[in-house]
């Protein structure tokens, strides 16, 4: 590959080239030049000098290099850095651009219109009524979150009123929200990993539901409760689960949602007696049961097993609730309501 040591690059050209590279899975020198309007020689110099950011991809399908231009791609580790450079550069050039109040309110209005439409279509009945109702719940949750961004009370108050009104209409209907387990379906004829369960914050919910409590997990493995503003233990998270408190656990460093991992840890520790402090004489998950789950995961698509277990647990919970309601004379306590 040609090398041009005497050429000096302007920062803006380099930024342009790297930004264009960011938006492409793979690219050639010619494509970057076309996309950015930068000369091919300049692009080539950028690519050559950015070996720590860009790597060469061998031509796919056994095509020889002579028949096809060399393709490159950004290293995965470089993407975050380049994205950050781009945002910083854009802010330096133009200052941080923010949405106007009207723009933000418009987003919330559109979400409320969508709720209205979904309710209208749900009330028409038919086979898709439940789907439209589920959709209305999702969109109501979306509208509620967008409304938080509308700070100005002049715009906020009428939207808030309308949101409450629509929530009332939604809660007035007798359909119950259903779990959408197959959101990211597998491609035809292929078994793919089941989508992670929908996070508590995005589950269908009414307007009265508060945003989920955020718990941060720090690199030193300590858990910080942002609501109570103190470190908490796994045992206290266990108590939150028992009290039906809606929460998410976010890793502080990578900002990844690790709620599932924490819940699994609670189950594992409970089975070992770590959370409660006593080793259970009769464990919930027996050795045979666990072995059977592992075997089932290998033979059948994982989504099927998970769905089956979820349904079984739902049936058990419903039976347990009705039994305790009968015992307590019809009273039932649910702390959070969500």
């Amino acid at each position, binding site marked *: 590959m040609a090398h041009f040591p005497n050429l000096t690059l302007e920062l*803006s050209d380099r930024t342009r080239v790297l*930004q264009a590279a*960011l*938006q492409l899975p*793979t*690219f050639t020198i010619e*494509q*970057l030049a*076309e*996309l950015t309007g930068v000369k091919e020689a300049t692009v080539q110099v950028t690519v050559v000098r950015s070996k720590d950011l860009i790597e060469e991809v061998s031509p796919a399908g056994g095509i020889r290099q002579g028949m096809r231009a060399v393709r490159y791609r950004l290293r995965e580790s470089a*993407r*975050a850095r380049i*994205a*950050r450079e*781009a*945002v*910083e550069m*854009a*802010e330096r050039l133009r200052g*941080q*651009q*923010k*949405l106007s109040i009207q723009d*933000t309110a*418009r*987003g919330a209005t*559109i*979400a409320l*219109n*969508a709720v209205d*439409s*979904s309710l*209208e*279509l749900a009330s028409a009945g038919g086979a898709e009524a439940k789907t439209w109702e*589920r*959709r209305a719940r*999702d*969109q109501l949750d*979306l509208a509620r*979150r967008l409304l*938080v*961004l509308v700070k100005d009370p002049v715009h906020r108050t009428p939207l808030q009123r309308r949101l409450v009104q629509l929530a009332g209409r939604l809660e007035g209907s007798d359909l119950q929200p259903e779990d959408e387990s*197959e*959101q*990211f*379906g597998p491609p035809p004829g*292929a078994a*793919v*990993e*089941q*989508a*992670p369960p929908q*996070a508590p914050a*995005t589950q269908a919910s009414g307007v009265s539901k508060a945003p*989920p409590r*955020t718990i941060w997990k720090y690199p030193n493995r300590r858990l910080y409760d942002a609501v109570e503003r103190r470190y908490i233990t796994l045992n206290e998270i266990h108590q939150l689960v028992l009290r039906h408190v809606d929460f998410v656990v*976010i890793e502080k460093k990578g*900002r*990844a*949602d690790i709620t599932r991992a924490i819940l699994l840890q609670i189950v594992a520790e409970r089975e070992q007696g770590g959370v409660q402090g006593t080793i259970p004489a009769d464990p919930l998950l027996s050795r045979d049961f666990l072995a059977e789950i592992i075997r089932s995961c290998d033979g059948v698509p994982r989504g099927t097993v998970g769905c089956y277990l979820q349904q079984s647990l739902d049936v058990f919970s419903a039976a347990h609730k009705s039994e305790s309601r009968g015992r307590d004379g019809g009273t039932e306590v649910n702390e959070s309501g969500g």
Partner: protein
Amino acid sequence: MTNEGKAQGGIALCAVCDVQARMVEALNSALSDWGLVEEPRNLLAPRHECDVGKQHSSGCPFYDGWMEEVSYGLLTACSASGGGLPPGITADFAAQARDCVEKAASAVRLQRQNTGAVRNPLAGQWELGAEAARTLRRFFECCAPEEQESTRKRAALGQLVALSYRIQSTPTSPAGLRRIVNSCLLAGQCGVTFMRVPERAELLRLLTQPIVDVAKWVHRLEALWRTFPI
């Protein structure tokens, strides 16, 4: 909407579909110049009225709103002369098709926004998808380092088109697409409203990287906006 009204709307849309089909055909040959090499080059903006025989997921905000906004963006980029022209679309072609394209673009939007006397309930769903696409386009514009506005807008449109193709090529059900649209709208609004540089950079990275596993991708997108108190 009455049957007669539906039929008239269908005929109007069929007429503009012809124009759009020509544009898509022209764009398909030009898409490699936009760097869209590995994404499937097929604009899926189904129009129910023109293709009654096929099964469509009714009111899906991604196909009915988002992708139509993308199509509209491409159509108007083609119809505009000067710097907004996508590569591969020659000025002659744009000049010849300009009137048709402008009519097509405005007719489609009028039909979808349904400014007539009778309100179409599906218009609300359509508008949600379109708003998500517009918000993301605005976010891309905010993050584009180009100095000139026309270049910045063109780069933002390119990124939006690329993202749309990537989402479209993932094995996603209508419910999953709705979740993606909702998440993108929230993340885009947060991005242009009050995210700081690290979060905006992370969002930009997520929206511009190849989607290997759509479930994980959405999960990370949600984790990003969920860290804000909304």
